[in-house]
């Protein structure tokens, strides 16, 4: 098991390195670190001096190695726009995104498993068809539109109908300035979590249903039933535990993707996380933020893919030897 894990980690390092080369050249080709300066000054000597100070007058490969060395040492520099330390900002942004991911995974995981198990146990029932239809709708809907509709119907509509001073759920930020408590936090958290969960639930519940049906047609399930084990016990003890293995690995992979995948949700709900950080950086051409952001996200995606592999090996001994 240990060599299996070690081998996977060693294999993922070159992928990350090549990704860093691609990211660096792509970002340097498409964004201009001096754009703001160019717009602000007409003095060519300032530009040349700044170019030299940032090392932009050196050839690109040299710039890359310098950048990589600084990146590994967590010397990420300061934002061109706010002049604040990128590493410190990234850290606080990261934790804000982790909060969304944590609650989103919890809600989506439980809901998706419940739907998947029910749909498989009562295959072709009316409710099974309803869930199938709903998941099609969930996957066909642009998430940003669902977010707008949620704000309209869960924030403004109840507020106007009930003539409330404050809405039940907030649609901006993490907490109100005045009263910050658990309840206030939950009222801010609810909508972004709902929006990010809809697509996860739609995808995962389909997956869990298929995996459940697959397991339930296995011989050992029929044996258990034939031996007189109750339907309920077979469903939850024998079938569900094995049917969870594929879903858990898919969940791990999806969680990795979420670190860079909440761009839309965070932008709409002004949630100060990674996604919003990135959109602001792109709009401002803030290369010092864009580069480490892409690398951090790539690291997490690779990390969770690795975790999924290991998890699969740990849960299903048949995989380990392969």
């Amino acid at each position, binding site marked *: 098991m240990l060599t299996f894990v070690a081998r996977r980690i060693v294999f993922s390092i070159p992928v990350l390195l090549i990704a860093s080369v*691609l990211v660096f050249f*792509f970002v340097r080709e498409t964004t201009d670190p001096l754009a703001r300066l160019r717009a602000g000054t007409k003095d060519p000597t300032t530009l040349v001096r700044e170019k030299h100070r940032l090392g932009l007058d050196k050839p690109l490969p040299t710039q890359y190695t310098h950048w990589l060395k600084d990146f590994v040492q967590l010397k990420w520099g300061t934002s061109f726009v706010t002049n604040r330390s990128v590493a410190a900002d990234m850290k606080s942004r990261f934790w804000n995104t982790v909060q969304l991911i944590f609650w989103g995974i919890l809600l989506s995981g439980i809901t998706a498993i419940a739907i998947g198990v029910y749909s498989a146990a009562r295959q072709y029932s009316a409710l099974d068809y309803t869930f199938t239809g709903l998941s099609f*709708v969930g996957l066909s809907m642009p998430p940003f539109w669902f977010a707008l509709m949620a704000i*309209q119907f869960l924030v403004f509509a109840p507020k106007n109908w009930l003539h409330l001073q404050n809405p039940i759920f907030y649609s901006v930020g993490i907490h109100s300035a005045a009263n910050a408590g658990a309840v206030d936090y939950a009222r801010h958290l609810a909508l972004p979590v709902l929006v990010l969960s809809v697509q996860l639930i739609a995808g995962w519940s389909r997956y869990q249903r298929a995996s459940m049906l697959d397991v339930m047609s296995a011989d050992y399930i029929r044996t258990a039933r034939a031996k007189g084990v109750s339907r309920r016990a077979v469903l939850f003890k024998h079938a569900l535990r094995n049917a969870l293995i594929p879903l858990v690995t898919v969940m791990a992979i999806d969680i990795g993707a979420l670190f860079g995948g909440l761009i839309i949700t965070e932008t709409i709900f002004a949630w100060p996380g990674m996604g919003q950080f990135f959109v602001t950086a792109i709009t401002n051409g803030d290369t010092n933020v864009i580069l480490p952001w892409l690398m951090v996200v790539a690291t997490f995606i690779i990390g969770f893919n690795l975790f999924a592999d290991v998890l699969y090996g740990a849960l299903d001994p048949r995989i380990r030897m392969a």
Partner: protein
Amino acid sequence: MVIPGRDDLSSARAAGAAGTSAALTELATEQAPAEATQAVPVGETVARSQWTLIRRRFLRHRLAVVALAVLFLLYLSAVFAKELSPFDLNPKLTASVLAEARHGPSFKHLLGTDELGRDQLTRILYAGRISLFVGLSVALVSTLFGTLVGALAGYFGGWLDNLLMRITDLVLVIPALAILLIAGQKVKTSGGSSPEIVLVLAVLFWMPIARVVRGVFYSLKEKEFIEAARATGASNRRIIFRHMLPNTIGPIMVNATLVVGLAIITESTLSFLGFGIQPPAVSWGNMLAQSEGSVGTPMAYLIYFPGLAILLTVLAVNYLGDGLRDAFDPQSTH
């Protein structure tokens, strides 16, 4: 979606032609309008081509047939937007136009008007042109390119195969939307025309198709009929185009439909964030971007309909894909 087994249906169709059971006739014509007209004499076996079987299985997936019809209507209404709508896309700001600004849905303006008095239904029809154009062209470009690369990689293996696999591995590591936003920022500064957006999206979407085609080619390569073709002296080109590609058409078409849906959603997302189609060109995504501020105001109706248009289109595309998947699957019981 559960319908009587295939044998029941074919006998129903045969019986229907003879005019025995009215209910069964209805079922048969509903399931397969195309076949109902060609009455097959009872007791005679007809050789059916592969395409007949596929068409038959597809027509049996009722939702997919409805989806196809919906898409066709959407397409026509976008193409004939000018003829269908009594209003201009961007009417001159005369007093009479402005007098009708900010009006909710009514008989004259079915989906209401915005703050410049522009009819929303008209704008949605015109926007459909760009959204459908982007969706279809991205699917076309990425399918052609992805199939080519996937076929070559799967058939010849070697360095091309290795390169393709490593590139797709790498791309999985970097979030697609992030790359699109960076590219979109560049496109935006150069005007944000739809062909540019198509190209940016196609660069992203060809890879899953290439992987799928590569996989199918990889397994087909070992099949006996390919060996037989090679033994009779068929050239590589002939084997690829005459023997392998026709057997890959199912996965290719299913994936191409999925790409249409994904591309429409992605384009609308990019345009919504301000990195895609730029005004005055109108797409469903940038309509939503322009009316984002109307959420929670009496003009909230402005955000309902462009989103519903996206939902309807993508839902139809996805059901179409579902139907095609069943139709091309020989084991399908549908």
